[in-house]
């Protein structure tokens, strides 16, 4: 079950769904795509309805919400309708490419992992569209995280992951943070609970359409969240 939380993704949604369907059909993987739209004002839901008609309501599940309620609750909401035994979470803005999902699955089988995390920092993982400053912030923040949390995973703020359904359910109960820190907390708690994590290098292609969000506010809240995790886990 692929969970796609969306907010104002009218342009990207059909493309990411097309890529998902094409990739997963070609790999013979049984799948469903759950679109959790938080009341987007730009017509995302209309596009989603068209996609449902094109690909069938057994493959495209529309489970919208009235307004912007955040990523964590979007996952919880989406999971209620997921019939898969594995859940893939990813961004709907084309920064995560569905072609890695079969690799996640292969990796999961290889090590019987509870979680497979896409990493931009190892192997031939990487990014496209980031300037030096953005890369520096990313590497610096990741270094700080590694020193303070020693998490046993190279990319903690990444949100392209495969989870065993029961594992994600368990983690959602325990995680309380928001934003980037939420993704970090999932990995940290997973380690605490003894879940195993495998990694697959991924390429992250920054926003093809729309605006990317990393300002001073994000950095501050990231640091606050990191220190909270440091002090409480």
């Amino acid at each position, binding site marked *: 079950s692929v969970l796609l939380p969306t907010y104002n993704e*009218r342009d990207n949604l*059909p*493309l990411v769904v*097309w*890529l998902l369907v*094409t990739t997963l059909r070609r790999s013979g993987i049984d799948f469903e795509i759950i679109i959790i739209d938080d009341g987007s004002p730009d017509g995302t839901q209309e*596009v989603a309805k*068209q*996609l449902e*008609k*094109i690909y069938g309501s057994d493959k495209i599940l529309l489970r919208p919400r009235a307004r912007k309620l955040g990523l964590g609750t979007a996952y919880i909401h989406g999971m209620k309708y997921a019939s898969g035994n594995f859940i893939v979470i990813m961004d709907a803005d*084309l920064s995560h*490419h569905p072609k890695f999902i079969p690799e996640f699955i292969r990796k999961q089988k290889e090590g019987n992992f509870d979680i497979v995390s896409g990493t*931009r*920092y190892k192997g*031939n*993982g*990487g*990014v*496209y*569209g*980031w300037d*030096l400053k953005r*890369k*520096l912030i*990313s*590497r*610096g923040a*990741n*270094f700080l995280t590694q*020193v*303070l*949390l*020693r998490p046993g995973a190279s990319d903690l703020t990444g949100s392209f992951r495969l989870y065993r359904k029961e594992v994600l359910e368990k983690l959602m109960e325990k995680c309380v943070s928001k934003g980037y820190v939420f993704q970090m907390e999932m990995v940290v708690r997973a380690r605490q609970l003894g879940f195993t994590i495998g990694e697959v290098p991924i*390429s*992250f*292609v920054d926003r*093809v359409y729309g605006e990317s969000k990393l300002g001073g506010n994000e950095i501050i809240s990231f640091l606050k969240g990191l220190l909270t*995790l*440091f*002090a*409480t*886990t």
Partner: protein
Amino acid sequence: MTKLGQWLCGLALLGSAWAALALAPPGLQPPAPLRQALLPLPIYLLVAFGCYSLATVGYRLATFNDCEEAAAELQEQIKAARADLRRRGLRL
């Protein structure tokens, strides 16, 4: 124990070992050369860690992969996707 707890314990352990040896009263002092090396050790370690951090982040920054092919491939696929979706009846 939390990570913070581990750090505090570790620092307390190392700190007290250092203090015991470096700040010991005259009767219990280790030999002079050892004391001379021991006294500034915390600062040296801090600076060494600072250098290590800069070097590591710098290296990782320099070797951060740029996924040119991935971006190009994506652009191609977007074109194909748009054409296919239009054929299947998607109206934007």
